[in-house]
């Protein structure tokens, strides 16, 4: 039982290190920032999640003392990774792109970093009409 648990924990730790390195290598390998955004937010998060699961199993099975901290960290990281990616993409759009160079959004409203929010814009138009 302990031997198989050790094999499982070792595999999870190796997979975590591998995916964390893949994410960081993609950060220097991929040519464009919008492509570079994919590497850390997906691969590195998966690697850290795998390391955290390995740590949880280690303290549960080998040390015999279950700890819930890893679950909290995993949940926090998996919740915050998409928010971080969205913010970095918005910062990139705002800093490095011109509004004319962007493709149309295909919807009623323009890009969020350049256009006002829809409700405020409607209120402004109404004020302008008055």
């Amino acid at each position: 039982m302990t031997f198989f648990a050790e094999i499982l924990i070792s595999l999870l730790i190796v997979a975590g290190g591998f995916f964390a390195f893949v994410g960081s290598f993609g950060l220097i390998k991929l040519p464009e920032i919008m492509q570079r955004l994919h590497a850390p937010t997906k691969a590195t998060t998966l690697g850290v999640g795998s390391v955290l699961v390995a740590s949880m199993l280690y303290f549960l099975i080998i040390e015999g003392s279950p700890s819930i901290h890893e679950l909290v960290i995993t949940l926090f990281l998996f919740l915050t990774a998409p928010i971080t990616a969205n913010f970095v993409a918005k910062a990139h759009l705002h800093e490095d792109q011109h509004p004319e160079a962007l493709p149309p959004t295909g919807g009623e409203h323009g890009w969020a970093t350049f256009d006002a929010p829809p409700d405020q814009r409607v209120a402004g138009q109404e004020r302008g009409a008055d």
Partner: protein
Amino acid sequence: MIFYALVFAFAAIGAGLMCNLWRLLQGPSIADRILALDTMVINSIALIILYGVLQGRTVLFEAAILFAMVGFISTVAYCKFVLRGDIIE
């Protein structure tokens, strides 16, 4: 066996941190640098967790939680500053 896996993971994450440092110093735009800093924080969390497994102590996990929160807040604050020129409006 866990020890050798830990050594491999330490080496891989250390190499990943060097990649992040290169992108942080090199990065052509501000968004690149923010992304590199965020990835460095996530890799550091993995390093702290692996060190906790190596030592067999759970004390270091509070440091990992703090690191995760501070990293997320600082990334969002930096992006907010780039977007709006102010952090809290």
